[in-house]
């Protein structure tokens, strides 16, 4: 009798801890979802009031208290273009090397290790590196080119990893088929691997680029300008960028009250941009994944 009470109590305690435990687990998920929702609600609520066609299509006026953010949109686009031209081909080539050519030896492991570690280097450190290498040594000055290349280096580990995932998803039988017919390695890659891996590679690349476009610390000292009344005319010019513009409007402007609405508008444009690219990529990736699962 006594032992059964003891057992019951033990069971009760186990049940209670399970109840509370999973309650905590659920609460942590809801907390994060709520925080995210609140984020989006606050920014879009205040941002939408500012956004108009003029806001998107005109340069800032009157010491950035009026007008739009066109130069920042164009600048971010241009700098991301440079980033893409640098990081996407090299990222793909590196992934092809790692997945198709590299032998599993110590050196390959070292390369993989450095890729993973590069992904963890703080973005401000990339900024410092860009200042020395691109701005000073290679004499690109503070420019679209310097900033784009700095962001390119930052993006590289992401594009490599994403491209390799895409290569992994191509079944080995495709490779064996080509090799059995006498194709050389490159012929095999070109005809039987790349066409199938390319959509996945590009999706990963776009995701990485969307992230790079939102970075501020690496471009602050390599080319982003506080205020420019004109659009950059060449890749050696400075430029305005959305994330840096948001930073400037939020913290550096002399008149906070006039700058704040514009900052909200800029933040919303940036968020919409990131969300659209990410959701797009997630959807495409889901479809690709299902395509191979037959």
């Amino acid at each position, binding site marked *: 009798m006594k032992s059964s009470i003891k057992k019951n109590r033990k069971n009760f305690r186990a049940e209670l801890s*399970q109840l509370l435990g999973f309650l905590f*687990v659920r609460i942590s998920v809801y907390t994060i979802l709520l925080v995210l929702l609140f984020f989006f609600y606050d920014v879009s609520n205040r941002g939408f009031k500012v956004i108009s066609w003029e806001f998107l299509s005109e340069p800032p006026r009157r010491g950035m208290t009026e007008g739009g953010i066109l130069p920042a949109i164009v600048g971010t686009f241009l700098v991301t273009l440079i980033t893409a031209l640098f990081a996407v081909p090299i990222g793909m080539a590196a992934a092809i090397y790692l997945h198709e050519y590299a032998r599993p030896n110590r050196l390959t492991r070292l*390369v993989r290790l450095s890729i993973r570690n*590069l992904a963890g280097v703080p973005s*401000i450190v990339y900024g410092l590196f860009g200042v020395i290498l691109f701005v000073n040594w290679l004499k690109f000055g503070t420019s679209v080119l310097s900033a784009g290349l700095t962001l390119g280096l930052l993006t590289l580990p992401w594009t490599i990893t994403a491209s390799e995932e895409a290569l992994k998803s191509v079944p080995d039988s495709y490779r064996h088929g080509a090799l059995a017919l006498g194709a050389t390695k490159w012929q095999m890659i070109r005809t039987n691997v790349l066409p199938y891996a390319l959509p996945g590679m590009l999706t990963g690349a776009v995701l990485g680029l969307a992230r790079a476009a939102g970075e*501020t*610390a690496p471009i602050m000292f390599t080319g982003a300008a506080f205020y420019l009344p004109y659009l950059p005319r060449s890749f050696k010019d400075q430029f305005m960028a959305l994330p840096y513009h948001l*930073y400037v409007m939020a913290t550096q402007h002399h008149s906070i009250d006039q700058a704040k609405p514009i900052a909200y508008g800029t933040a919303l444009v940036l968020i919409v941009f990131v969300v659209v690219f990410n959701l797009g990529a997630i959807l495409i990736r889901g479809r690709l994944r299902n395509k191979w699962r037959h």
Partner: protein
Amino acid sequence: MASVKKKGLISDLKERLIQHLFEMSGWLALVVLLGIFALLLTTAIPAFKEINLKEFFTSSRWDPTSPEKPEYGILSMVVSTMLVTAGALAIAFPLGLGVAAYLSDVASHKVREIVKPVVELLAAIPSVVVGFIGLTLVGPLIARIFKLSNGLNALNGSLLLAIMALPTVISISEDSLQAVPQAYVEASLALGANRWQTLVRVKIPAAISGIAASFMLGLGRAIGETMTVLMATGNARSFPHGFLDSVRTLSANIAIELGEVPYYTTHYYALFALGLILFVMTFVINLTADLILEKQKRKLQ
């Protein structure tokens, strides 16, 4: 016959050329990593012609632009960085582990397909936007709760950095919880343990190295984060005494001062020394996490 041979030779050459091209791209990652370290090191070294190493690490006074006597002590910035990061992980780690457990043990397949992209979305929010939220939303909230004149302090920075570190903690912890062999779970349930007991006493201990790695990687992410802390912590140069003090982290200090510093001065070199410290700290943390994960992978194979 000869032309066939010639053709073979050319295509052979082409093959090798292409392979080398790919190989070089692969090696670039290693070159960049070493390059970052080497350039930071060589740019940081000249700073110590004028700065006493001992003073650099043990003094808490950082005032490089003082006209009488410039001072270069990084102690308060190091402590600030650690304070903000510790606060961030104290929030992000339990929360992240909770979400990971939810994804691996509670959520149905359908719910997981929704929650996972949301977590990825969280990772994609630019840090400057998070900083902006800290400035406009979290700051005033903290000021009201603690009755301060403004809410730009270490607590604000920690809350925001927790958001930045969460996705990392969640995804790595979840991966390692998922990697626990199903047989462990079944054995535990068969012995009469309930699902919570199985999670806490079987799955988490089995996945502990991956979970530890997720903590480390979150830490690495939080230490180097710049824009959020720059915008949300107030950036006071004094030595911090608690979470309600305004603090200036290493990364924020670089961001604040690099824009105004004249090139090739001691101050300029000293900022690169800060960058080098940041680089070494994150490198050691990430490398440790990496080694832990490698080891776990081999063990589970």
